[in-house]
């Protein structure tokens, strides 16, 4: 049986979206609990005392933090349905490498786009597009990063698509025209119910970014 599964999350969190998608792919019933970021609850501090961040997956009372770690946990526990990581060790290593690339490049550069100004913002925009082009190269002619099947890297990356509107508005640029292959892949992913039901509304993401900007004192 699945046991008790709670997802401590925030609607606009791209990391939380990863876990929503994975749990949906595996058909796992869970209780969703929303954190009212940037304010954090005592429960969050208790479940993730080290980093104090969402998402936290809580399975039978035990917390698992860090989205890619929780993603692998979900894949291992509910291994018989829609496996996300390939079974071959070399392909698994490549999948993990690309998921790390998403965290190191897409996430960090994306954050700079909405939080930085002037030259720093311009540099971030340029590097962000470059990173997406590298990902387009890796995708090649495959329907998904996982090959024929939707997989780990797809889950890790697709949530950022819901942040594109916020990046474009804050950065005053267009992403889609520069990365059409990426957008085609994203739209393909959005056809999956697990994705369309898990991704936040881009307008609501933008509203959240405005709250973050105010909270961090960014103009």
């Amino acid at each position, binding site marked *: 049986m699945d046991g008790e599964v709670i997802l401590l999350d925030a609607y606009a969190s791209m990391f939380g979206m990863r876990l929503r998608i994975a749990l949906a792919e595996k058909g796992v019933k869970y209780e969703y609990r929303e954190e009212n970021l940037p304010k954090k609850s005592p429960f969050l501090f208790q479940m993730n005392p080290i980093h104090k961040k969402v998402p936290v997956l809580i399975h039978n009372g035990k917390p698992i933090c*860090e989205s890619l*770690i929780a993603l*692998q*946990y979900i894949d*291992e526990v509910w291994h018989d349905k829609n496996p996300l990581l390939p079974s071959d*060790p*070399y392909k*698994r290593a490549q999948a993990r490498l690309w998921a790390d690339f998403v965290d190191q490049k897409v996430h960090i550069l994306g954050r700079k786009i909405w939080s930085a100004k002037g030259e720093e913002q311009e540099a971030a925009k340029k590097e962000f597009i470059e990173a997406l082009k*590298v990902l387009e190269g890796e995708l090649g002619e495959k329907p998904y990063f996982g090959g024929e099947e939707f997989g780990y890297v797809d889950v890790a990356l697709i949530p950022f698509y819901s942040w594109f509107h916020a990046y474009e508005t804050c950065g005053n640029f267009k992403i889609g025209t520069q990365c059409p292959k990426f957008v085609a892949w994203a739209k393909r992913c959005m056809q999956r119910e697990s994705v369309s039901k898990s991704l936040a509304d881009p307008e609501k993401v933008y509203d959240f970014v405005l709250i973050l900007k105010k909270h961090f004192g960014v103009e």
Partner: protein
Amino acid sequence: MQSQRVWLLGFWASPFVQRVKWALKLKGVEYEYIEEDLFDKSSLLLKLNPVQKLVPVLVHNRKPISESILILEYIDEVWKQNPLLPHDPYERAQARFWAKFAEEKVRESTWDALCSRGEEREKAVKSSIEALEKFEEELKLKGTKFFGGETIGFVDLVAGFISYQLPVFEEVGSMKILDSSKFPATFDWIYNFLNHPVIKDDLPAKDLMFDYYAKRSKEISDEKDSCRNA
């Protein structure tokens, strides 16, 4: 290269490479080691890791794998003897969490501390100590000889730099990060780790590390200062 053979491209001082060497030794995997000059990178390295151009690169069945923590996972999946990660999914998640913490919170701040000066260095030293305090707490909670339990595991290998490299950083930078009175569990762990048969005979020479890191620390700090003043 014969497909069955295992090759490791490395650099003698790199803690990332060291993790992989220990893992291969623990598993009893024979391999060929190729020393890279990181300041004059070979065409082989650039071919095997064109994106980051970094060591370690493990080559197995003619296929290259990079990123030390990912290499450890690969090694553990291919060679099943002496498992590095626990079997239970929750325990595995915890091990991955603490390995990531050791790398991103501990090692990165100690490196920042080494390669900076003045206020920046003070800040990095403070971050290192805060991170190590959490590491200490977790060790106390576990109450075992190693992070992996009674045997060395994934987290021990990733955090291993604390045992032999951090003291060199402290000496080079005249910094006090690991105070034995404040980190008793960590010091016990360091003692156990350094005395493990696989670890103790496979460490870079202390004096060579001192010279290398003294030079690197100055070069990087000078570069930061000149960028700031440019």
